[in-house]
């Protein structure tokens, strides 16, 4: 069961070889056995999961099943889920039971996919190691002394350990792709605007985008079919015709032009990662692709730009946590201002506070032009680099992260060192382009290596085609950690 693809699980359900309840119970048992060591879930509620599974079984029995009805999925704890604790990894929301469903949750419910629970994450999605969670760090299933990446670390770890067949994640600067790489799974951040942000607790609204995380590209294509679509409740949701993201999976790659940005293969890249990515390029060449060197000259500025724009947006978004309408309130205070200040000092963790302070500063009087406006201008230069590059190639390929998973605690005292993990993933967020990570090998310590694809706007079907053909020719994505059988 644990190694079964989403399409195979759906086929078994349709053929009545297994019920949704049995399937959910299998994964709940696996969560009960493995989660204490991995800490991938913040909330598991077997009763709710089994009730949703029973409803899915009723849909199947009545002949009203969709393509994935009855297949369970885990949701990142950033998505408001009606009646479920929704913490965003923070003490601030440690008592917050959401009174409504995020649009993404509504879509999975409408598809008849039961929730296996809410996955652990860096607090308010701010982190690259899952160590900033109020609910404790997540351990990498490949080696529990190492981080799973972040911020969707619980999602990546639960899929890698096969505690769930798939999971949702969100990606503001790499939070789907980097943990997917570090945990050896496949994850996709769609074009900005394809998936509604309604009910997804906001970090940096012009960058945040939800996407699927699963073992394979084919799984991700099926999940993307469920997740995408116009939502009037999100002012940035795009009105587009519905696409079938599985439509190009089987296409041969002959004639595919793969762009290799020289800046992504320069100083700072771990040699084992570089070798694995080179091997993947050769594999794609065997499948008929050609390569072309491209330049994303301004991508080196992506981290500075991101650490102005994302904190600026975050400082505004997180001003809503004031101890008045929901969430944590400090137990003792002198007056209203003191209540705000104590609530926020006690409710937010160190990294979140750091980013709120950065954002407050760069937006404050006298500094706006030098920081915020300058960052927005360089953001355009970065997006223009991509537009130029896509004149010469169909998809851009490089490493997802500069290295493999690092040890718990290794970088947690050095914010800048931690930020550099997202060197290759942030540019796609700034441009609003789709990006994905897929497994392409292991380092000498047996830790997974991730390959990144960045596509042009709305080219998800093409990227999934490339990834699927690569995964037909290789088996990196099918491996799973030993000792978690």
């Amino acid at each position, binding site marked *: 069961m644990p190694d079964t693809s989403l399409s195979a699980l759906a086929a078994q359900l349709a053929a009545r070889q297994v019920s949704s309840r049995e399937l959910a119970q299998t994964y709940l048992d696996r969560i009960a056995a493995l989660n204490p060591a991995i800490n991938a879930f913040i909330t598991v509620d077997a009763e709710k999961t089994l009730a949703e599974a029973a409803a899915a079984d009723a849909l199947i029995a009545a002949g009203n099943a969709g393509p994935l009805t009855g297949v369970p999925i885990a949701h990142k704890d950033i998505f408001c889920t009606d009646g479920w604790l929704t913490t965003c990894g923070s003490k601030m929301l440690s008592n917050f039971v959401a009174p409504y469903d995020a649009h993404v949750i509504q879509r999975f419910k409408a598809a008849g996919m039961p929730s296996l629970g809410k996955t652990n994450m860096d607090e308010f999605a701010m982190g690259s190691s899952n160590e900033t969670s109020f609910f404790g760090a997540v351990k990498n299933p490949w080696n529990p002394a190492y981080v799973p990446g972040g911020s969707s670390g619980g999602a990546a770890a639960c899929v890698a350990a096969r505690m769930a067949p798939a999971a949702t994640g969100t990606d503001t600067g790499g939070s789907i792709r980097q943990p997917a790489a570090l945990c050896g799974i496949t994850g996709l951040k769609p074009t900005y605007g394809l998936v509604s942000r309604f009910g997804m607790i906001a970090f940096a609204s012009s960058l945040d985008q939800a996407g699927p995380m699963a073992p394979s590209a084919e799984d991700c294509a099926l999940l993307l079919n469920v997740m995408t679509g116009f939502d009037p409740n999100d*002012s940035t949701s795009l009105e587009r015709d519905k696409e079938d993201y599985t439509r190009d999976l089987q296409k041969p790659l002959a004639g595919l032009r793969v762009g290799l940005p020289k800046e992504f293969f320069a100083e700072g890249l771990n040699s084992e990662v570089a070798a694995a990515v080179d091997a993947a390029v050769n594999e794609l060449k065997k499948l008929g692709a050609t390569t072309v060197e491209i330049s994303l000259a301004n991508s080196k500025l992506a981290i500075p730009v991101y650490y102005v724009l994302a904190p600026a947006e975050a400082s505004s978004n997180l001003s809503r946590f004031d101890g008045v309408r929901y969430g944590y*309130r400090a137990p003792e205070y002198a*007056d209203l201002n003191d209540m705000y200040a104590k609530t*926020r000092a006690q409710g937010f963790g160190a990294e979140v506070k750091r980013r*709120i302070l950065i954002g407050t500063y760069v937006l404050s009087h006298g500094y706006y032009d030098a920081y915020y406006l*300058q960052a927005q201008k360089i953001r355009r230069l970065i997006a223009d680099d991509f537009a130029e590059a896509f004149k010469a190639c169909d998809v851009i390929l490089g490493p997802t992260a500069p290295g493999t998973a690092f040890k718990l605690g290794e970088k947690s005292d050095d914010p800048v060192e931690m*930020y550099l993990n997202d060197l290759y993933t942030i540019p796609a967020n700034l441009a609003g382009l789709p990006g994905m990570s897929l497994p392409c090998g292991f380092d000498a310590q047996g830790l997974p290596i991730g390959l990144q694809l960045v596509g042009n706007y709305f080219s998800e079907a093409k990227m999934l085609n490339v990834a699927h053909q690569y995964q037909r020719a290789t088996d990196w994505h099918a491996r799973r950690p030993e000792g978690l059988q």
Partner: protein
Amino acid sequence: MSLSQDDVKRIAALARIEIDDAQAQATQTQLNTIFDLIAAMQAVDTGGIAPMAHAQEVFQRLRDDAVTETDRHAVFQAIAPAVENGLYLVPKVIE
């Protein structure tokens, strides 16, 4: 550019986050390291470049001026720290 400890306290006050002297000192060091990283931006000539606020050129949609939401205040207030008679309670602001 380098932030002083007073700068850090002023920013924290703007952000409504209580901070003591020891925290302000530790934060000062970390923020300055981060601003050193950000400083790489300042050397770039961006004359004539239009700022990019958003990935897509989207415009605010208009809809009919009709009621679309139902009254759910009881559900929303059930999770509030302090409520009385349908009102959120905060410490007294006006004497």
